[in-house]
Structure formats: structure tokens, C-alpha cells
């Protein structure tokens, strides 16, 4: 007798819940990184389930680039308040104002600057574990990262010195000043996240669904027209029906033309699409093949 079967999503959820509980039990001050995007929404749900009916035993941290979609910020505040979690916002603008980082030019992508803000926030609050929603299927450097990824006192990742992680026995031992990044959704694919959102009936920010928006076509991507993204020579502002596949710094996150107004329709479109999430919508990764690996070494998400 082989007994009741466990579906893919339930297996992935069980594995993620296990990782969240291990870290909460073994590390002193965890925090959950929440961007308001679908991955962190799925992650937050997993974390809530891990401890229910008790409240989440750690706060939620958002690194605000200052270039966020207003719809996402609105969603973030509402979602976190409804659940009664403690929200900490670390602002890249504050890091710039304090001279911790330098902005190359106003309106340039702040993706890389986020790293400093994140590390400063971890240090300020003495967090020793940060949960993130990153997945191994996102790109090649991530494919080798551990679920519990050790960071030295400078927040850096050393891909050649990763701790072995056999089975799901996580080693969360660190020295003062060091921390771990924890990726409970490591083994989820983009479609798994969408299907989980659907199965759990999770609410998403409205920009994930088809809406009319003024966009500018640049390097084959549709960027939202905003105070930071203005048409340059020859570019036109188009009025298009679009949705987003990821949410990030709006100066580098591309929209896709879409008719999908609900989650089921979004999933069908993605199943039919043949371009990866990052390839389609993240300008920052396209610059160099090893772009992500470099940023991760520095301490990026």
C-alpha cells in the first residue's frame, strides 16, 4: 500500500515550512524580507502557516528603493497591517541622504544600492537570519545556493565555501556579526509560486493583472512611464494593456502585454510563454552573464 499521495504544492509547502521553523528555533533574531511581490507573498503565507494559530514570531522588513509602484506600497501596508505583523521599512533614500551610498544619476536603477541599505538594516536591528523568497530556478548562480546561505560579517556570500547541506538538516550556527539568508522557496519554480497563490487564494498587488498603463519601449522592454522614466530621444509613450511578472525597482522592471485579468488567466499566459521571468522583465540582469553572481557575492538578496 502506498497510501495517500502528497501533491507537488503540498510537498513544497511542507519543505518550506520545515526550513522556516528550523531557523526560527535555532537563530535568535530572524526577519522576513517582504517586497510585496508574489514570491514574498507566498513566503509570508508559508511563514504564517508554520506558526499558526500563534502570530509570526519575527518582524517583516521591506527595503524600499524609493522607486516602487504605489500599488505595491499600498498593498504592503494593508497586507501587513491586516495580519498584525510588525513592519520595518529600510529606505534606500535614507542611505543616499546619509552618504552610505551614492546614486549615479537621479532616476538610475537603485537595485544595486539596495544591498547597502539591507545590510545596514540587518546590522542596526541585529538580525541574524533573513528569510527571502528567492528561487533556484531564477538564474544560474541561485541554482547552487543553499537553503541556509551563510554570510560573513560583511554580508558577503562565498560560492566556493558553502557549507554542505545534506538532507534537510540545516546548520544555522554563526558567530556574532554573521548572519544567514534563508530561502525556503528554493525548490519552487515560478509556476509553482503562481499556482500556490491561486490554490491559497492569496491577494496580489493589482499590477500583476492586466491594466492600462503608459509605457515606454526600451531595449525590447516595456518600462512604466514615471517621474524617473521619461522618453529619451525618439522614444514614444505608449498606452498599453499590460501586467507585471515581477515587481521591483520600477526603473528596471518591464511589463508584458497581457489580457489576463485574474490568476487563472495569468497562469495560462505564463504556461504558454517561452521567455524566462528574468529574461523578460529584469533589465538589471541582462548587462552581464555573471551579473547576478557578482551582486550576490556582495550581499544582495
Amino acid at each position: 500500500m502506498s497510501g495517500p499521495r502528497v501533491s507537488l504544492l503540498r510537498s513544497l509547502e511542507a519543505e518550506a515550512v520545515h526550513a522556516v521553523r528550523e531557523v526560527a528555533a535555532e537563530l535568535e533574531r530572524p526577519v522576513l524580507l517582504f517586497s510585496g511581490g508574489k514570491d514574498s507573498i507566498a513566503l509570508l503565507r508559508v511563514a504564517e502557516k508554520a506558526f499558526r494559530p500563534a502570530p509570526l514570531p519575527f518582524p517583516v522588513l521591506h527595503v524600499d528603493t524609493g522607486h516602487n509602484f504605489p500599488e505595491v506600497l499600498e498593498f504592503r501596508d494593508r497586507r501587513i497591517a491586516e495580519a498584525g505583523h510588525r513592519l520595518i521599512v529600510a529606505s534606500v533614500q535614507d542611505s543616499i541622504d546619509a552618504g552610505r551610498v551614492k546614486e549615479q544619476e537621479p532616476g538610475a536603477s537603485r537595485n544595486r544600492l539596495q544591498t547597502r541599505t539591507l545590510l545596514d538594516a540587518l546590522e542596526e536591528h541585529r538580525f541574524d537570519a533573513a528569510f527571502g523568497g528567492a528561487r533556484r530556478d531564477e538564474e544560474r548562480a541561485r541554482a547552487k545556493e543553499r537553503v541556509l546561505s551563510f554570510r560573513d560579517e560583511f554580508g558577503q556570500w562565498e560560492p566556493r565555501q558553502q557549507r554542505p547541506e545534506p538532507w534537510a538538516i540545516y546548520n544555522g550556527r554563526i558567530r556574532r556579526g554573521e548572519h544567514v539568508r534563508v530561502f525556503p522557496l528554493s525548490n519552487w519554480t515560478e509556476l509553482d509560486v503562481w499556482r500556490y497563490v491561486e490554490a491559497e487564494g492569496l491577494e496580489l498587488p493589482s499590477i500583476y493583472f492586466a491594466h492600462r498603463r503608459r509605457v515606454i519601449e526600451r531595449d525590447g522592454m516595456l518600462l512604466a512611464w514615471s517621474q524617473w522614466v521619461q522618453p529619451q530621444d525618439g522614444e514614444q509613450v505608449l498606452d498599453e494593456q499590460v501586467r507585471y511578472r515581477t515587481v521591483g525597482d520600477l526603473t528596471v522592471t518591464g511589463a508584458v502585454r497581457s489580457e489576463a485579468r485574474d490568476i487563472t488567466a495569468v497562469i495560462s499566459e505564463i504556461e504558454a510563454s517561452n521567455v524566462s521571468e528574468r529574461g523578460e522583465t529584469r533589465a538589471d540582469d541582462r548587462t552581464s552573464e555573471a551579473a547576478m553572481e557578482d551582486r550576490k557575492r556582495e550581499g544582495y538578496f
Partner: protein
Amino acid sequence: MAQRELLRLATAGSVDDGKSTLLGRLLLDTKLLLSDQLEAVSRDGEGPDLAALTDGLRAEREQGITIDVAYRFFATPRRSFILADTPGHERYTRNMFTGASTADLAIVLVDARHGVVTQTRRHTQISALLGIRHVVTCVNKMDLVGWEQERFEAVAADVRELAQRLAIPDPLVLPISALHGDNVVDRSERSPWYDGPPLLEHLEQLDVAADRDLSRLRLPVQWVARPANARRRGYAGQLAAGTLRAGDPVVVLPAGTRTTVSAVDTLDDDAGDASGNGAGPVVAVPPLSVTVELADDVDVGRGDVLVSPGSEPPAARELEATICWMAEEPLRPGRRYALKHTTRTVRATVQALHERIDPETLAPEREPAALALNDIGRVTLRTSSVVLADPYAENRVTGAFVLIDEHDNDTVAAGLVLSAREVRPAREGRRDVTWHASSLERERRWGALGTRGATVWLTGLPASGKSTIAVELERALVDSGRAAYLLDGDNIRYGLSDDLGFSPGDRAEHIRRVGHVARLIADSGTVAVVSLVSPMAADREAVRELHDAAGLAFLEVFVDTTPEECERRDPKGLYARARAGEIKGFTGVDAPYERPRTPDLHVPTAEVEVAPAVARIVELLRDDQ
């Protein structure tokens, strides 16, 4: 939720056997390659460089070999696959071990031209060792041997012979060409003589749900949820074996308490609730993560395990295990590490190193001096506290552990339990160790020193006044010309017992050690003055027996102060912290104290001052002479 299932795969092969090409082929032919990923590896004139698709970090791109485990994902309408792509070379055995540790199925690649080579044997052996029940051997590059059936059959016969030796139940051997896609996703026309399924079909149809053990419950407790309202506590963990539903009887280990499950949350909101409403009673099965409530208010913490009655694993203090050594610095017998097993971490000493398996020849080497990086060997470990383990062959979760170096916090070994034994260090009859009587007779030694040894054992609640009496007693004895030495429980924890915590097992072990030290001091002619809570009568009794057997005086002094008074004094603020939940298992708050029934001296501190108590002890010691 959708009924698509998950299958975990691991691949291994020597460099250039075509592992990366096979992976690229699976991704390409299941249409999972997205156009931008394909573009990144496309080359002019030729087809895509399939191998480059699955090759990750920059250092590896430079060297052209896969070093670390990389995880790949692909799916068909029936199944989703997580594939751990592991390096094949023996220099990276630890990575293969890691990648294959969770796999349901292993794919081993063989080059048709070379047949079964050492690496093939190694990979197959490691797969078998890691408890992977389904091993598929792909004889690759069949195009380079002209799709000759005889060549394939010869290789397949070697593979089957190997599988049989390693007790791999149903090995599948497939002729493929990863480069051209034959028998990978679609059946090839070039091998009409092969009547088995193509690789992907086999991966889709294999029944792995049957590999789970649904009979004997194993739920290692990860976390205790304490909801703010009056609800019961929730015990959270991931099911390692067995099933669980409301009404099931369970035993909490290591305490041995029996109780009943009153509710189960499998985290699935569509599954109805535990009371049987909705879709019927919830039955949790592995590998679900659950939260359970128990009918009785029993003491359960992280590291405990819920098991079904009658299936209890031994409360082991000794593990015989196969380990894969993963650190640069070699493993040597006698070294001590932290051992993490499910949700419990203890300390473990390498008692013996029995065997090392030569990575090249696979020949066992008896009693080696050390295990080097990537070596596999067999050891005996002695643990500081109980481990509730099953043999790995019976359970891949409760039979697995890692060793951690406590100086640099690195994970240094992955271990598989062969057997777990209940060895009580105190009782163990080791025939090769007998008490070695000193050449000087005790009476002569004591006579020459003009002193007599004995042990005064002060027991009582924390803050009951033991230390005050102990300090005064030591001074009084020394002032009167008698050698005395104060053994303070905390001081001993600082050194000799620094590997012990405050779990019941660790406390018993601590008391055992202090008891032995006291006996040695007493034997030398000094009065050992011990100040130790020592809450359990059995532990104190064992120390008394130790002294009786050695013909030494042992005075048990019960410093009797009411719990309320102790808590009122609380000089170190420990009661307050225990009440706040910061200290768990604190005697007098949430751990029991067994009052001595027939102490040699009873000191009710409410009525007796320190000085007369000390005087009375000195008197008793004198009587003993």
C-alpha cells in the same frame, strides 16, 4: 491543490560522460528551455551547447566542470522534477553526497565506449548507501558505438551484477544518446532491440509514494507554538514516518510519556478539519509539516519525538554510523563535534574509526588513522545526551545526521546511522578497564597526611542556601586542619561538563561526573564538599553506591527551603527568568525536585542557622572516623 506529484532526482557521472548534455536534452525536449536561456548557449552553425545550459558559477565555467550541486527544475503534465546535478569526480564526493541525499531516484551515466568504470561503481555505491531505491543507469553515447546491441548488453550485464551486489532492487539500464536525444524523451528507432521505456516515461511512471514508511510514527518536534489565547499548545514538525490523526495514541520520547493526539493541522485548508467536519478526518502522512495538539498537558519541547506506542527507537548514547567526511581538516578518533540529528543537537565524541573506503578502489581499509576530505568511513560515536535514531536503512530522516565543528561552525560530515545503542556510560561494563588501586594503601596515605577523605553532598532547590553552607563548611574544615575542597556544580559545568546542557539526560550525566570526581578527591584524603541541586533521587543514589563500593564515607545533606522562600531570595534572578519562560526545565519552576527521604542530615533553613548546620556536619564527619 493540483495533484501533480514531485520526484527528486540526482545525477552523477564521470566528467565527459554527458551528464550536462543529458540534462540540457531533458530540458530542451520537455520544452522547458525558454528562448532567452537557449539564446545564452546557442552557437553559430551548431545546435545549442546543451552542456553549457546546466553549468553554473563562473569559476566552474572557467574550469569547464561542474563543482557544486546545482538544482534544476523541469516538469511534464504528470510530474514535476527537482534534479540535483552533482559533480562526478571523487574530489567532489561530498557534493554528490549532498545532492543525492534527498533523491528518490538516481541517474548514473556510463559512456558506452568505456563501460562500467570505477566512477560508475562509486556512484552506484553511494546511491545505494544513501538509500536511493531506484537507480537508472543510462549507457550514453550509443551513437559512438554504432547502436550495437551486443555492446549495450555487455555493459548492462556488468551494471546488473553491480546492482545485485549492492542490493539495489530493480535497476533499469537504458541505451541512450544524450546528444541526439535517443531514448531520452522519445523512443529511438535506432534501438529496435530495446523494449524498455525511454528515460522520461520511466521517471513519470515510477511509484515513489510506496517508498514511505507509513507504519511507525516519527514526528520530531521542531517548535512549540504557544498561542496567546487559552488554546492548547501546538507541537510543530515534519512527519518523518507513519501517519497521524486525531485520536491516535502517541509516546513522547525521550520522556516516555503516553498521551493522545487531540487535533492535527496539516496546513491544508481544503482538507477539512481534524474533528471530521468538511472532507473527513485529516490524516497526515510524510512528508507533510504539521502542528498537533495533545489531549494531556505533558511536557514536550524541541528535540523530542512523538512515536507510535510499541515502535520506540532506543534512547541511544552510542551510534555506529557511516560518514562522509566533508572538511579539509581530517577526522581523527577522539575528536569531539556537535551532532545535529533531526531537531536535536548533542555533542559526540569519535570513539573509534573502524574503516575507510578507498575512493579509488572501493576496498575497505581497516582501522585507518584518519578520514580525509571526501572519504567515506565507518565510526562509533558516543553522544553527550540521548539521540532517538533509527537505522538509516529504515528511515532516511531519523537515520541521518550531520557533524558540526564547534570552532568554525562548519558542517564537517554527513552521517548515516547503522545502529543506535543504549549505552549508559555509568553502567557500562568495559572489561578492559578495572579500578586501579593505588600502590599506597589508603590508610597509609591518609595517616601520613594526617587527614581523612569523605564526600559531603549538599542537595536542594536552587537558592536554597547550599552554597552558603558549603563555603562555610569548607572554611571550618580547613581551619580545623582538615583538607577540604569545594566542588561547585557551576564550576564543573564550566570545564569538565561543558558539553552538557540541562536536559534530564545531560543533568544525570553531569551528576555522574561530579560524583566520580568527588570519589577521587575523597580517596585522596580530602573532604569533597559538593554543592549541587541534583534533583533526582536515583542520580544521588548512584553516587552513594559509588562511594559505598569504594569504602568511602558519603553524607547526603538536604538543604530544605520552601520553593516560595527560594524564589523570594533568588540571588541570581534565575527564578524570575524561568517564570518568564527564558529558562526551561528549571528545578522548582517547571522541573521536579525529588526530596531525599532519608538524608544523613536534614537542614530546614527556616529553623536552623548556617553555623549550627555547619557544626553538625563537622560533627558527623568526626563520628565517621
